[in-house]
């Protein structure tokens, strides 16, 4: 089975998978503790608009998707901070409109032949070394921000009212968290596709939440778990010739199920 490692595409897939898993462990933790799962779902689907435009105008897909995702993140941050009661309606709207824009542009593209499925369910086996450069610079940025602004991000996530009383710019950090989420969602789309991206961002976090006593340890544990699930998922997908995104998610979900069962049994025994 190890002979698959000699293929370039498999090496790229493994490296990209692990890098994306670490990023999604960090950002997924922030998304879960800030209760932004629905917002992240909206951003993921909106980014399809950027994918469609990138295909139509012929610029890099990552660029188009990132641009759309970041714009929708800023819009959602603005709505959440100013019109909290209307957030459901607006996120639903942005979600659908983004998808619609994407579909229309893909339709308009002459001789369109890009595999739509690869954006919906991921295309980790098609990761290029340019993609890896992009993914690793984003991961670097995320780690840098977390090291220097951990205190502020923690304060805003735990109790935003108190943070603002203590002179922390809540709007800035809230928007920053959403923008980083948007960028992470885009690279995670490469691995598992936009349909499954929320599962990649949240399943490892649900397990880590039970095992950690600080946000930082939650991020680290999620990153490690996510990497393990991705690597196992990749080998399973190679072995049985199934879509990698789906097998990664199934491995994660199975692990969550086993973990929760063990937790329950332990509780009953005690």
């Amino acid at each position, binding site marked *: 089975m190890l002979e698959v490692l000699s293929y370039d595409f498999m090496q790229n897939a493994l490296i990209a998978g692990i890098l994306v898993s670490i990023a999604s462990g960090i950002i997924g933790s922030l998304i879960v503790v800030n209760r932004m799962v629905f917002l992240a779902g909206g951003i993921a689907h909106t980014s399809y608009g950027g994918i469609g435009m990138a295909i139509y105008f012929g610029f890099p897909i990552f660029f188009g998707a990132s641009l759309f995702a970041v714009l929708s993140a800023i819009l959602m941050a603005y709505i959440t901070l100013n019109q909290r009661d209307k957030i459901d309606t607006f996120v639903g709207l942005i979600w659908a409109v983004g998808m619609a824009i994407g579909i229309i542009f893909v339709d308009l593209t002459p001789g369109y032949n890009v595999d739509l499925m690869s954006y919906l369910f991921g295309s980790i086996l098609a990761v290029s070394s340019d993609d890896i450069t992009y993914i690793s610079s984003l991961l670097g940025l995320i780690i840098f921000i977390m090291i*220097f602004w951990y205190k502020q991000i923690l304060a805003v996530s735990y*109790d935003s009212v108190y943070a603002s009383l203590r002179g922390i710019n809540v709007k800035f950090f809230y928007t920053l968290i959403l923008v980083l989420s948007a960028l992470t969602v885009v690279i995670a789309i490469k691995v598992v596709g936009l349909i499954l991206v929320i599962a990649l961002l949240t399943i490892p976090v649900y397990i880590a939440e039970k095992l950690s006593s600080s946000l930082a340890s*939650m991020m680290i544990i999620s990153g490690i778990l996510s990497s393990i699930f991705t690597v196992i998922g990749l080998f399973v997908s190679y072995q049985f010739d199934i879509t990698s995104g789906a097998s990664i998610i199934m491995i994660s979900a199975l692990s969550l199920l086993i973990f929760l069962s063990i937790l329950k049994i332990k509780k009953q025994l005690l």
Partner: protein
Amino acid sequence: MKNNILEIKNLSFAYLQQEVLQDINLEVAKDDFLAIIGPNGGGKSTLLKLILGLEKVKTGTIKISKNLGYVPQNTNININFPIKVIDVVLMGHKNETKVKGIKKYFKIGYTKDEKDCALASLKEVGMEKFADSKIGSLSGGQRQRVMVARALSAHPKILLLDEPTSSIDVEGQKQIYDLLKKLNKEITIIVVSHDISVILGYASKVAYINKKLVIHNGIEKDIIDRDNGHFCEVEMIQMLDQLKQKDCSC
């Protein structure tokens, strides 16, 4: 008066067309323990937000020491948040540093002084043993005391508490109020509460607020003792109305 730590003059406030507060005047002296009571929708929370600066004052003035501590109402939200008690208390420190320039935006972690100060605050509220516990593993009363410690770590001159006992049991409530009484020797305490038993033996001054504000300096203790401190709010309001009429007639 120089001794006043909080002065509110001719304060009115409205959300859109709805007037919530009307011509409020309030002076709080340094050693006061003020209870703000009143019905739901009477403007208690709005007044608190205005004092804290979470809402902008449009009509009237509020003068208050910059150095204030705040304990929010609902400490049961975010119970599952992965955070240790000590890290919650550390958040109370002001987000300011002596380092100037670009470096001040990139200060990593906390200094030893800040950690010692946070531990001292925890000790003050009797929670130092729980410094490394997860916040979610504490009881409601313990969590409330941690929130008081968080407010104390900024060394405030005045401490504002919003319904500090709304979600804790009777034993926990007594502990909180005894703690506040102890703290009142050093700092001014303002408690917004439904819980009339605050007034019994703890508050030195009561402000009843229902759009307008009426101040009472001390309540006739025997009336409250009669019911063992547990009265319903309606009775309290009736009693205060009687007092108000008395005030008017003289």
